[in-house]
Every structure is written in structure tokens, then in C-alpha cells.
């Protein structure tokens, strides 16, 4: 029963979080000065009627409360609305942007998880040695690098070797399957590497810190005293107990995948969700912003929920 209670509570908390986030998002974007009409009405030869027509079209002539009720009603029907900026369904805009972003961000995050965890463990295990010095310095270096700067450096370094912009070479005429795959691989390498390197630093430092904590515990000392092999101590006793913060970090990272990577997408001209959100902010495209942040909220909450449920499995103390 305790387990069922735990799961139910977590679920209820997740639903409540999404609802609160939806409400805050609705209010937050409207607090910013200016409106979508400000920008969109400023086209050559637009008339005062243009502004009125746009306001009516977007429902901005209604009160904030009415707008909120309409938004919730639409949301209940799974309708995210129509983008102010390009008059297309927000769902379509988000789908396209997400499909573009996900492979690149996932690849970068995966790189960081694999290499960051590995170097974090090694640096903790080899504490006080040159290995630790090198890994920590490298991790700190990448962690403190501004993402766009690192991206630009890679652009300069690899210009002429790898493509510096876009997702694929759209000028290839009837490429074969493998040519196309290779082309996609070339384009994804630099942006995914940029993201991976920055996240790699963060992972190394957090995993190292979690590992150092568990390696100092009495049960590790006991295991050593018992004469267990170092690999067994590391895997069975230290790493398993360090998994809790690592799980949280991985869950959060995966949750944020749908947010894309604004700076990286800008540097590498990657038409993903990060750029879409940035543009929506500039254009005060409320439906697009609400839709994007809803997807982000649901994704983060869902991944956290999964982490919570994994805790349930990883940490017996929760059921006690």
C-alpha cells in the first residue's frame, strides 16, 4: 500500500504542477511589454484597420480572463491554437521544430551522460592523482565555456571540413540513402558535440562529487577491509549508492531535451525548438510560447516522475 500511495501522490503532484505551470505561462508572457500586433501590424502599407483586424483575429480584444478560459477550453480538447506569427497550427510548428531538435540534443546529451559519468567515476576513484587533476580541469574548462563561444570556435576550426550551418545539404540531387545518412551525420556532428562537451563538464563534476561522498562511507571501508576487488567495491557499493543524484541529473537532462538548445541552434542555424521559442518570445507569439512551454513542462514533470518511480526501486528507504 505504501508503494501505491507513493505512486499516486507523485502522479497527483505531477498533474498539479502541469496545471500551475500552464496558468503561470499564460500570465507570464502577457506581462511582457508589447504584443504580437505591435510587430505584425508593422508591414509596409498596413493601416489602423490592420491592427484591429489582427487583435480580433488573435482574440486579444477580449479580457485576459476570457482569453484564459478560452485557452483552457482549447487545451482540454488538445488544441494548442494557431500561431500569431505564421497563422499555422501550433501543433504543426512544434512538431516540425521538435523533430529537428530531438536527434541533435539527444545525441549531445547521450555523449555527455556516457563520457561524463565515466570520467566522473574515474576521477573520484583516482582521487589525488594526475588523472583526477586532468579530468576535473577539463570538466571545469568545458563547463565554464560559454556555449555559443565554443560553438563558434568549432565553426572556425572545422569550416571547410564539416558543414557550419543547417541540418543537411539540401542542394544534393537525388542522393543515395547512405549519402543522405552521411550528410546528416556531418551536419549533426558539430552542434551535438558542442552541447555534449558543455554538458560533459557538468556530468563529470556531479558524478565525481556523488562518488566521492559514497567512497568515504564506512561500508566502502568495510568492503575494502573484507578484501573485495576494487572493481566490485566500485560497482556494487560505491556506484549503486551514488546513483540517486545521477538519476535525478539524467532525468532532468532528458526532460530538457525538448527545450532544444537556443544558443547552439542559433550558431549552427539549426531550425529547432530552441530557436522557435526564442522567435516566439520576440514576436510575442503567445499560442506558440504556451504550446512550447506546455510541452517542456510535461516533459520535465514526466521525466521527474520517472526518476521518482526509479527512486522507489533504487532506494528501499522510501517504502519504509
Amino acid at each position, binding site marked *: 500500500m505504501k508503494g501505491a500511495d507513493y505512486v499516486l501522490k507523485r502522479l497527483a503532484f505531477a498533474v498539479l504542477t502541469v496545471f500551475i505551470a500552464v496558468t503561470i505561462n499564460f500570465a507570464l508572457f502577457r506581462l511582457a511589454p508589447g504584443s504580437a500586433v*505591435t510587430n505584425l501590424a508593422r508591414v509596409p*502599407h498596413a493601416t489602423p484597420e490592420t491592427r484591429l483586424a489582427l487583435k480580433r483575429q488573435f482574440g486579444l480584444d477580449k479580457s485576459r480572463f476570457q482569453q484564459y478560459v478560452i485557452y483552457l477550453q482549447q487545451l482540454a480538447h488538445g488544441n494548442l491554437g494557431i500561431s500569431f506569427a505564421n497563422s499555422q497550427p501550433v501543433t504543426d510548428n512544434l512538431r516540425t521544430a521538435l523533430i529537428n531538435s530531438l536527434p541533435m540534443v539527444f545525441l549531445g546529451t547521450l555523449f555527455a551522460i556516457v563520457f561524463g559519468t565515466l570520467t566522473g567515476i574515474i576521477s573520484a576513484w583516482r582521487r589525488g592523482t594526475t588523472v583526477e587533476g586532468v579530468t576535473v580541469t577539463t570538466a571545469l574548462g568545458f563547463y565554464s565555456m560559454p556555449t555559443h563561444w565554443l560553438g563558434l570556435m568549432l565553426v572556425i576550426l572545422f569550416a571547410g571540413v564539416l558543414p*557550419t*550551418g543547417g541540418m543537411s545539404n539540401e542542394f544534393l540531387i537525388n542522393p543515395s540513402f547512405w549519402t543522405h545518412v552521411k*550528410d546528416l551525420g556531418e551536419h549533426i556532428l558539430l552542434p551535438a558535440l558542442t552541447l555534449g562537451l558543455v554538458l560533459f563538464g557538468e556530468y563529470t563534476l556531479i558524478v565525481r562529487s556523488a562518488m566521492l561522498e559514497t567512497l568515504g562511507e564506512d561500508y566502502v571501508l568495510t568492503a575494502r577491509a573484507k578484501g573485495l576487488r576494487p572493481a566490485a567495491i566500485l560497482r556494487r557499493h560505491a556506484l549503486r549508492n551514488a546513483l540517486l543524484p545521477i538519476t535525478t541529473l539524467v532525468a532532468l537532462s532528458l526532460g530538457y531535451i525538448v527545450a532544444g538548445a537556443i544558443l547552439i541552434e*542559433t550558431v549552427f*542555424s539549426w531550425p529547432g525548438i530552441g530557436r522557435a521559442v526564442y522567435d516566439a518570445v520576440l514576436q510575442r507569439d503567445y499560442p506558440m510560447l504556451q504550446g512550447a512551454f506546455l510541452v517542456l513542462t510535461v516533459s520535465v514533470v514526466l521525466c521527474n516522475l520517472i526518476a521518482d518511480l526509479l527512486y522507489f526501486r533504487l532506494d528501499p528507504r522510501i517504502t519504509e
Partner: protein
Amino acid sequence: MRKWTAVLAAAILAAALAGYATKASGSGSSAKAGGTFRLGTSSRIDSLNPYVAFNQDAYNTFEYVYPFLIQYDKTNGAFAADFATSWHSSNGGKTWTFKTRSGAKWSDGQPLTAKDAAWTISTDIKYAAGGAANAAGLVAHIKSASAPTANTLVVRYAQAPGNVLGQFQQLAILPQHIWSKHLGNKGTNLKTFSNNPLVGAGPFKLTKFKKDNIALFQRNDSFYGEKPKVDAFGLQMFSNEDALVAALKSHQIDAVEAVPATAIKTLKGSFNVRSVPGVDQTDLIINSNPKKTAHRELLNLKVKAAMAHAVDRAQIIRVVFLGYARPGSSIIPPATGAWHNPAVKPEGFDLALANKLLDQAGFKKGSDGIRRASGHKMAYDVITPTDVPSTNRTFQILQPAFKKIGIQLRQRALDSTAAFDAISSPDSKYLKFDLAMWDWVALIDPDFMLSVTTCAQFGGWSDSGFCDKRYDSMYSQQQLTPNQAKRKALVWKMQRYLQAKRPYVWLAAQNAVWAVSKNWGGLVASPQGPFNSINKLSLTRVHQQ
């Protein structure tokens, strides 16, 4: 560890192969007869729907995929045939008759006739306050449009206008058989139509469009006018100018539509770099609303004149635009040709004269060196939009110069939506702001630029709060003066008037600069760059050398 070494080696090998493959595909695609011209831009096509589009590259696209009645000629100074081959006015300039091409076709094979033009104009009039609001200004004063024959378009005006051809040069003719299905919701559906795939009738057909990524255009062999020399051209959209320039240098693309000033030096020699006077001008805006409540000393013409003399345009051009600009002087830039009044000269940089003017106006300096006006310091916020990066460095030049004449400036950087909101607040009354900086991109016909300083543009295009009945009267007069010589005299007079009243101090008119691979030639120069909405010539004539 050995496994990781192997992975790393594989990655390096893949990277090396990737470089080879990229180069190979680049040269391979242009080796075909006609070839594909690959143009890079840091702007983008925001929508394929003319009733929704906002960005200039969208309008440039429409120029190449849709028929227009007329276009500008190679000199950008005179009108030339497009879908209409001849035109004349009658009934005192109230009726305009256009003879259009025969045998023209839309890209889906349907006939293109004058009826499509009449339908487009009639639809724009009917839904001007709704779905077709984007085009409302282009059909102002039109009573009706009809097509008595398949090759004759007749447009009737309520009053004889002065800028008929200038307006029609900007109006894309849409296929009635496609767009008439999207008139629902009282015309609102005109805006929600994605228009992809796009049925057009220009020299090119849009064959692929990925938002914020790529637009591919194929030659339209059934085009009624001059046929393109290339098989296709593509517009690749970059969100980072350094990556755009790097792509040109590594031959991933063949040309850059607008080269950032900082990259010009590095491209010269290896690429053909063209620089011509442009239509993009930066300005210092002085709130000129006569109803302004605070800091009313800014309405004093001597204060405005002093500010104009405290602007070191030579330094702005040298530092901000690295020499690729000219001093600004008038709301109508010189690149528009005969519409620019050459007698309107930029004010000389003369701090002594500026100080003298402020002394004469009675604003004495305090012990801190800042002048006082009606008991308060002459210290003002300057609103700058973050999406016009040149404003930052320009402000850094203005600030110390203004301090020397006893005026303190503080920068207030906002994104463009918030900046316009701050300028026009409260409720589009322009009462609160003092100074701002921005830029204007002029069209060839002066009507639009002259309209932004009319009272009618409060809440619309006005960013200066300027409202002057005498000016408005001149504006209406030029709109209704069919005789172009008389209209030009009026336009020149209005420029002098605006310089005297100074809602703007014009800073610099930026050059249009583009770079092209030496393997390509034929692009036609224009103040809007090689990809423009002035005419269909540039990409029709581009060819491999």
C-alpha cells in the same frame, strides 16, 4: 580505453571524409548545365502567404514566384513591363487600363489572365479590414477592378492617385482558382492558408520549402517573360553570420545576400564583393509629439538643431559601418534616385555651434556640466532596439559628444516589440519617450516613407510622434498628384520641411554589400541587394562564368 581510442579515430576519419564529401557534392551540383545557384542569407522567409508574411525575404520570394503587373527596370528608376505590357490612364487619372500578356500559365497549368489580377485587387479591397489587411494600403483609393477581356485590366479610383505604378509594383497577383477557396470566415481564412505547395507564375517555381532552413526554386519554363539562365536557385537560411561567411568560404554556398561589414575585408580577393548605396538608414528619433507632457524642451527646434550638430557621422561610418555607409540627411535616401532631394544636406559636426544654439535657447549648464531646462537636467533615455546591433556602437559615439554640449544620454536597450511599445505608450499617444534610435528601410517610391511621419500613423508606423497638419496636407497632395514632375517637387519640399522640423536626425545610409563566388556572374545590382523585390532581373540573369 582502447575501444574509445578506436571510436575517436573513427570519428576523425568520418570528419575527414565528411569534408571531402561536402566539397564533392558542392562542385557536383553546380557542374550541371545551367546549374544551381546557392544563395545564403541571415534573414529568412517567415511565411509563404502574402497576407501573413513580414520579412523582406518573403517579399523577395513573391517577386520571383508570382506575376506582378509591373516592375522597376535595371536602373531601379523607371517602370518596366512584367505581367502588364502597357498601361495608360484616362478620366483625369481616375481610370487605369493595363494590357496583360496572353498565353501565360500558372505553374499548375491553369491559364493566367487579367481576371486573376482583377480578382486579387477586388479581394484585397473586400477584405481590407480583415484577412487581406496586409495589402490594404496597396489598394487604397481603388473603387473597383475588372477584366473586360482576358488581357485587359481596368482599375477605377475614387480620386486620381499619384503613385499607381509604385503601388502595383508591390502587389503580387494570386491565382483565383487556388485562393478563392480560402475566403471563409469573412476572409480570415486567407491568413490561415499555408500556401505550400505554392502555385505561382514567376520565372521560378518553389519546389521545396523548409522553414528557417531552405527554399529551393526551379526554373519555370512556361514563364511569360525573360527565362532564367540557371536550372534552379536555393536560398539557405543561416541564423549566424559567422557560420554564413564560413559556408561561403568553404563553398557550401555560392553567394551571400548581405555581407556583415566585419567580413568584407576577409572576402575581398577570393570573391566578387559588390557594394552599392543602400536604402537602409539609421536614425536618432526625437519625440516630436506637440502634446508631449514631459521634457518639452525637446520640441524646441534649436535643441533639435544642436543635437543634429553633435552627431559625428564620419566617425559613425568609420567605426560602426567600417566605411560601408554614407552620411544620412533625408527621410528619402539617395539610393531611391530622383526622389531624394540633394539640397537636403547632413548637418556638420560642430560642437561649438551646438553649444551656441543651446545657450541661445536659454538652457544653461549646471556645475556638473549638464544643462538645465525648466529646472530639470537635460538627461534623457535613448530607447534602442536589440535587433539593430549598430545602435549600440552608434550610441557609444553619440553619448560623449552629447555630454560635451551638456546633454546626458542613457541607453535603454529593449527588444523591438518592447521598444515600439515604450515609444508609442501610453495607448499609441507617444507621450512618454524622449529619444530613440532605429533604422528605416525605404522603398523606391517615396509614398511609404513619407507616410510614417503623418498623424494617421499614430499607433501604426509612426515612431517619432510627429503630427503636423501642414505636413499631412502636403502628403495627401503628393498622393493625389498624377503628374510625376509636380509630385517630385512636392516630395522634395516635404523632405526640406522634415529636416527643418527634425523628428529624425538621419545618421548613416548603409551600403548594400554582397559577395559572390567568381564562378558566377550576372547578378543585377540594386539598393536592396541581389535578391530583392524591385524586379525579377537579378536571379533571372545570374549564370555560371
